[in-house]
């Protein structure tokens, strides 16, 4: 964990240096074809004789790299990527989808595609032997026989995670220097961030959440990189979570009116529909629900274009919705 923090701090420091200096500090992207070294967020250092060109990835990690300009040769996701807003602006015909349920990936197809490197996301507590995105250690071990697996930790602010993804993309040969596509996307991202900050100044409160029969899952913004970043930009989230909660505060439907926000962001990953929320006896009578201020919470990959697009939507809602709470 300490290594991860250190690495993240370094990346942040690099990012803070400005784009001109940053490119000179990074491993030479021109060295495509040369030896490649990467120390990932679970603390393993992968050394390869040649820079990987064929990348397979877990959905969220793959979408991020894709938006940095690296089209994965294979994707395995916890759902069908075609149904996931994460991929709404990506052309899935350019890749092979080899898994549409968590832990279910076609190992033979993966092996046949001969990837040089496999990238997944990870959460606190994972190790090189046990990473997120795989069914179990045995499956991960088999995948590691096909190609090395590196992990990008999804914690802290989105800025941290995006910086790691950017650095990884650069090491794989993506041009991130001034004038590049990436630099352009980053500028748009910064504009969108500024617009969101301005909209957040209107003071409307926000509750991102997920709902099912057993109750309401209120997101703890600090544990979700995108929400943590939006909070840093000034978006006022409901203060969810008791001290031991991680990521979710789980509330029964009886307790579902504990928070009374102006705007509700409803998960797009299997949550109740807006109509089902409106029918809920307690939650349905919240001012935000009655005012029709329930919007999609799209869980986006950690890259500039994805978050730029979602921040534009969020800015619109924060600006145009009413104060109801």
């Amino acid at each position, binding site marked *: 964990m300490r290594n991860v923090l250190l690495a993240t701090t370094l990346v942040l420091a690099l990012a803070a240096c400005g784009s001109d200096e940053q490119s000179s500090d990074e491993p030479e992207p021109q060295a495509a074809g040369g030896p490649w070294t990467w120390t990932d967020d679970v603390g393993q250092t992968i050394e390869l004789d040649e820079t990987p060109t064929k990348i397979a990835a877990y959905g969220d990690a793959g979408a991020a790299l894709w938006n940095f300009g690296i089209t994965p040769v294979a994707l395995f996701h*916890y*759902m*069908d990527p075609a*149904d996931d807003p994460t991929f709404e602006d990506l052309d899935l015909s350019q890749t092979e989808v080899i898994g*549409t*349920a*968590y832990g*279910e990936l076609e190992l033979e197809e993966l092996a046949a595609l001969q990837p040089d490197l496999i990238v997944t996301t990870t959460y606190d507590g994972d190790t090189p032997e046990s990473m997120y995105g795989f069914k179990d250690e045995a499956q991960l071990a088999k995948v590691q026989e096909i190609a090395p697996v590196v992990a990008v930790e999804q914690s802290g602010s989105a800025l941290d995670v995006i910086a790691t993804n950017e650095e990884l993309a650069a090491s794989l040969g993506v041009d991130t220097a001034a004038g590049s596509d990436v630099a352009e996307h980053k500028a748009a991202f910064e504009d969108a961030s500024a617009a969101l900050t301005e909209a957040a100044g209107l003071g409307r409160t926000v509750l991102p959440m997920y709902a*099912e*029969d*057993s*109750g309401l899952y209120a997101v703890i913004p600090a544990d979700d990189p995108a929400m943590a970043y939006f909070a840093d930009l000034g978006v006022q989230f409901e203060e969810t979570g008791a001290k031991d909660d991680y990521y979710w*505060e*789980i*509330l*029964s*439907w*009886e*307790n579902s*009116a*504990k928070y009374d926000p102006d705007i509700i962001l409803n998960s797009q*990953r*299997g949550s109740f*529909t807006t109509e*089902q929320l409106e*029918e*809920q*006896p*307690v939650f349905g*009578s919240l001012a935000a629900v009655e005012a029709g201020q329930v919007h999609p919470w799209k869980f986006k990959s950690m890259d500039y274009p994805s978050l730029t697009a979602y921040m534009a939507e969020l800015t619109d809602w924060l600006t145009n919705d009413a104060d109801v709470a």
Partner: protein
Amino acid sequence: MTTIAPAPTAAPATPRPARRGSLRGVLVLTGLLVLAGLLSLAIGSRNIPLSTVVDVLLDPDGSDASTIVHGLRIPRTVLAIAVGVALGVAGALMQGHTRNPLAEPGLLGVEAGAAFAVVIGIYAFGVTDLTGYAWFSLVGAGLAAAAVFAIGSTRGGPDPVSLVLAGMAISALLYALTQVVVLRDVDTLDAYRFWAVGSVASRGMDVFWQVLPFILVGLLLAAFSASTLNLLQLGDDVASSLGLHPMRAKIIGVLGVMMLTGAATAACGPIAFLGLVVPHVARYFSGIDYRWVIPYSALIGGLLLVVADVVGRVVVRPGELQVGIVMAMLGGPVFIYLVRRTRMVRI
């Protein structure tokens, strides 16, 4: 000739006088069930003072407390009682008709049929609400039970062993098909896995009214079954020599199990253990006469499910545990305790 004296054995423990069902027992259980129902209105994952509960019960005022009591607690209490009654009776019928103390309502393939139909409903027809699930699972339960009945029936009518074997085979097949669908489609899996846990929460009164007719018909069939079950325990031959049509009696009983389990599963998803444990608890108090076993099973089933649901609301506040999980956690140890502590009344 020397007589071989039988080896002296330990004197048989004096059998306790067999317990018998009685009207008094039924009244006591009814009282307990009403009490549990009232507790279920008063206790929830959100603390509402008892006086407020009483106030809003008498005079709904649109406050949060009123919405919680009327919109959430009343529907789930009524549903838990109905489903508990249904599963308790279905379990008793099932154990009686198969003459197998380990039989439970799911053995007829009813739960597997309901599960598969729900998955098809979600996957192919885009059903997302509980009322829709209930219709699909009613149809699925009926079809599966009919198939089991057809396969398990031999010349003389449905034979208990063949029925159970057919039920297990059909269940295994249907669960495999269910897995095939949910592994292909994660949205279906997401929706299905919540249904599959078994819960009485967040169901409106509409679900209760939807399944009530089936439960009532099932209870009626169970009432017809009660006296014939006593005869069937003697074996088909003895029963028919006493003037009973074993085939007709079994069809009535199995139809009852189908209706009750199908309706319960449709309303709440599969709830483990209840149908298995309740008849044993009932027989402990009522003896083996099915005219008492069935009403006792009904009341104990309702009581157990309501209590389990209330427990689920308070153990992980401010969240809740689904009653299916509580039942599995409570049901296992209770069953082991019963087996260890008491001599099960044999059937």
